[in-house]
């Protein structure tokens, strides 16, 4: 075996970190890239099909705007408590972090309820024509992300009330906030395709 020469000590290093210094942040970034690529390709498929189906939508009835607008406004506003929760986690504040988690869980649940109403108001079925298929696909794709983040947030919330947080878990809350930001941002182009596409294309 090769001889070893000790040149330094690692024991003084912290045992957790926030943001890009944390390993979990990179894991989440990887999954956001994968899911972002999925969104992008589904969006590409939308434009590919627009070229083949005219008029767009074939039924000439675009999705109703009310619930879509409500969802968009609420999800954009949700960034305020999301950012606040993120700050509390960075400051290792136990009570406020848990309050933020409860808030975000409630917002997620309300958003899901609105999403259910959005599906009722799409004015097309998935099997009607390629327009209906791709609109449903985009909506389901985004809804899956809302559900995933809600499940994740609920789980962390429950855990935070039973077990005391350690540093790594505060970093986990912060990563969860980053993921929610991704869910917010990806909604904007999808909302454009679902609600504005049929009106403009």
């Amino acid at each position, binding site marked *: 075996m*090769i001889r070893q020469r000790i040149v330094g000590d690692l*024991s003084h*290093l912290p045992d*957790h970190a926030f943001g890009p210094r944390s390993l979990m942040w990179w894991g989440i970034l990887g999954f956001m890239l994968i899911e972002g690529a999925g969104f992008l390709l589904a969006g590409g*498929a939308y434009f590919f*099909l627009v070229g083949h189906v005219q008029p767009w939508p*074939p039924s000439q009835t675009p999705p109703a705007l009310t619930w879509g607008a409500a969802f968009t406004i609420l999800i954009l506003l949700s960034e305020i408590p999301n950012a606040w929760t993120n700050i509390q986690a960075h400051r290792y504040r136990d009570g406020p972090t848990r309050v933020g988690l409860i808030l975000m869980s409630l917002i997620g649940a309300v958003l899901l309820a609105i999403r259910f109403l959005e599906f009722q108001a799409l004015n097309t079925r998935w099997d009607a024509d390629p327009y209906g298929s791709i609109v449903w696909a985009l909506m389901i794709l985004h809804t899956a992300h809302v559900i995933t983040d809600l499940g994740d947030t609920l789980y962390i919330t429950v855990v935070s009330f039973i077990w005391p947080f350690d540093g790594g878990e505060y970093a986990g809350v912060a990563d969860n906030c980053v993921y929610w930001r991704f869910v917010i941002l990806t909604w904007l182009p999808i909302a454009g395709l679902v609600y504005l596409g049929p009106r403009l294309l």
Partner: protein
Amino acid sequence: MSTPLEDEVLREQLERVWAHPTGWRGVLMAVDHKVIARRYIATAFVFFFLAGALALLMRLQLSRPESGLIGPDRYNQLFSMHGTTMMFLFAVPVMEAVAVYLVPLMCGARNICFPRLNAYGYWVYLFGGIMIWVAFALNIGPETGWFSYVPLAGPEFSPGKRTDFWAQMVTFTEVAALAVAVQLVAQILKQRAPGMTLSRMPLFLWAMLVTAFMVIFAMPAVMVATTFLISDRLVGTQFYNPAEGGDPLLWQHLFWFFGHPEVYIIFIPALGMVSQIVATFSRRTILAYPAMVLALLANGLLAFGLWVHHMFATGLPRLGNSFYTSASMMIAIPSGLQIFAWIATIWDGKPRFRTPLLFVIGFIVIFVLGGLTGVMLASVPLDLQVHDTYFVVAHFHYVLIGGAVFPLFGAVYYWFPKITGRMLDERAGAWNFWTFFIGFNVTFFPMHMLGILGMPRRIYTYKAGLGWDGWNLVASLGSALIAISMLIFVVNILVSARRGKIAGGNPWEASSLEWATASPPPVYNFLRTPVVTGREPLWEGDDLPVMSGLGDTRRETLCVTIVEAEPDVRQKSAPPTIWPLLAALATTALFIGSIFHEWAVVWGAIPVAITLCGWFWPGRPTRRAVKAETSLEERAA
């Protein structure tokens, strides 16, 4: 310098902390990257031999005209399963599996960054592979080729569940591949040895980093494509149905946006392997390291601009043809640059022609031939003439077997001593190489001729007197020689694993970090964290600089800064658990259920969520317990 006694104490401590369960619990709960990677590699090779057996059956059928051995329906399943297994269950997984074994070791890390995700990925891959082979055995295997074009694969022309099993197998393998890709990105960027700056990274790490990013951007395309396909077949969506305004070409675009990068996802890891082998056996650093890194990046980028060259025969606009022709020809530049750098490295070094280097030379010869026919096929007029003929079959076997399987075999001979602690037999290795090299060329070179003579792909038989009989017989004889070569390989592996010469830590006197630890490596990989001071760490001096202080009372791995690789954080590493296996079983139930009913996606998500909760369950005292303990202590005080 540490004393032997200190080393011994530390060793015992680490063995306790990193110990994994034994017996059945060990089999089911393992999270050690080396254990998972060994299983991954072995499983991938089992699929390789199964797919090879199907190829032999096809060659037997085609060895003479009008053979009645295999009927058209079975033949459809044979070539579909052969391609599917080779691409989805062997080539991508085996490259990632080798990386799962080597990347943490080359980084000087104690384990892979997300050990439970790693275990989960393996189980999902295994269950997906078993599913498709059981379906095949039950006569519901895929029948529409490995790229399952619609409308042939649509509900109208492929009734029953054959294509659904195929599409869901893709989902299984992509989930597994993506899980590994995310880990490789995080591992290579964040968990390298201190001092291993980006400009000192071994080329294999660069190759795997590029590959992992390619997997991340390419694989979602096939998942989107197959999800649309299943939904067209199951719930009546209209994505690919031209009667309702859908378009079969959407499938081709989505599939090849994945399918072409896929070729490079298989090939680029092989380039990394070749660079490691060439450096070691030439006894010098790889020539033009910065250019080699840039070439890998260029390969990765250009690979995303070529997918339409698979679709020249679909009638594209002329400008589109010209663009993809030039992009396809351009990728020969970074590939050629690397070939020249390896040849120059061997030329300028002191080469030792051991088996791994033989396979590398075989790779160079075969891959260059395949590359040349690739440049030919990039030209639209020629492509249209030989489209869907055996010329294309010859071309992609030259680039895939030459470009990936030969380097992989070299890699097996090179790293087998590290994995098992024993050397593979050199004489058997030489026999293995020469029979494979000759058998390969005898099998696949005649296919160029058959293609030029107009023999189409995927036909189960042909009439006599078309001028194809002789070349087909030669190709079939060549395939028998490949089978003999594979037999030599397996016997060599099995015998050497038990009776091979003891290897020692660094039998090839190589320079990268995986050779700085014992063979096979201990469960904790390195006693102390190695520090890197140059591009070839083990050739830098007589001893290895290391850092102490990484957890000896809990599982810890080190995170560093991305560019300069300065030590930054001691990160917890997850211990063994059964939950990744249970999560994979729940995922399997969801995927298989959704072949038959769309609501399986909803109900199947519940067990998946439950198993994920178990996966992340905090194993420490609750708030109440902590409070009770604190008040007890206060009272005692």
